[in-house]
């Protein structure tokens, strides 16, 4: 996909809104950092076995099917 970037002058009206998005992103990252701390425990706890079993069963079936 080719994305054409308009020249600076023609971007002028959009300038404000794209800097708004930039600012929004910055402010959301400040919240994101704290959310990551909040959910730290979810990431560090072991993944439920049943999730891994679903994938394991699939992989086993796939490799059995190849034999």
């Amino acid at each position, binding site marked *: 996909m080719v994305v054409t970037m308009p020249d600076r002058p023609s971007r002028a009206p959009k300038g404000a809104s794209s800097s708004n998005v930039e600012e929004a992103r910055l*402010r959301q990252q*400040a919240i*994101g950092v704290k*959310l*990551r701390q909040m959910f730290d425990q*979810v990431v560090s706890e072991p*993944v439920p076995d049943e999730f891994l079993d679903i994938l394991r069963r699939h*992989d086993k079936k*796939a490799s059995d099917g190849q034999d």
Partner: protein
Amino acid sequence: MGLLERLAPHLPYMRRYARALTGDQAAGDAYVRAALEALAAGEASLPPHLTPRVALYQVFQMIWGGTGARLEPPADVADGDDPSHRLMRIAPRSRQAFLLTALEGFNPAEAGHILGATPLEVEALISEAQAEIDAELATQVLIIEDEPVIAADIEALVRELGHTVVDVAATRREAVDAVAHATPGLVLADIQLADGSSGIDAVKNILGRYDVPVIFITAFPERLLTGERPEPTFLITKPFQPETVKAAIGQALFFHPAKVKAAAA
């Protein structure tokens, strides 16, 4: 390479996202499980042009977007002022764009693959999320600052975020009086005030009565670091970048309980 090997490293983060998105670990896990089962049954597949992590989130999105996004919000979402409740009050699609980028660290193109949206649409969703967050957090702000020019700068910035400035106090006395008239939801405080009084003392006085987030904006950060630092507080050093102050305000408010408690009452 099998599904287990490709996806297992990403499952802790997938569960985090599901939890943040649905507001509940059990509900989130149910969608993760459904996504994995769809993959295992061949009802969904990992698009080869995407990284395994992006592809996994995309399959999850298909499952959740088809059912979960339509089912909410649960009854208890309307009130409740912890961060999870705040998240749930953001509309589903902008919440996803927000969480995928700010929590999960995807770039707009990746978030677009996951959401089935162009990067421009993702940016629009991020802006919508910000408008919703701003509306959610809008509150009354007390500014404690003795320099009129700086006070005016801070005031403008605070208004830009959609907050109301209840007062600008130049001394400890004025700050304490201001709080007696209107309880702020946020205090922005300088440390060295006009009459030689201390913003730290003013804040300690206020925090003795109300549970309110405080952001110190000061040219003398060491006074906060050496002295007894009142909690909960943030610290920004002058001269400040407006974006830094805005980011700190959002962070302070998002994670602070909204209800103003009158401890002495």
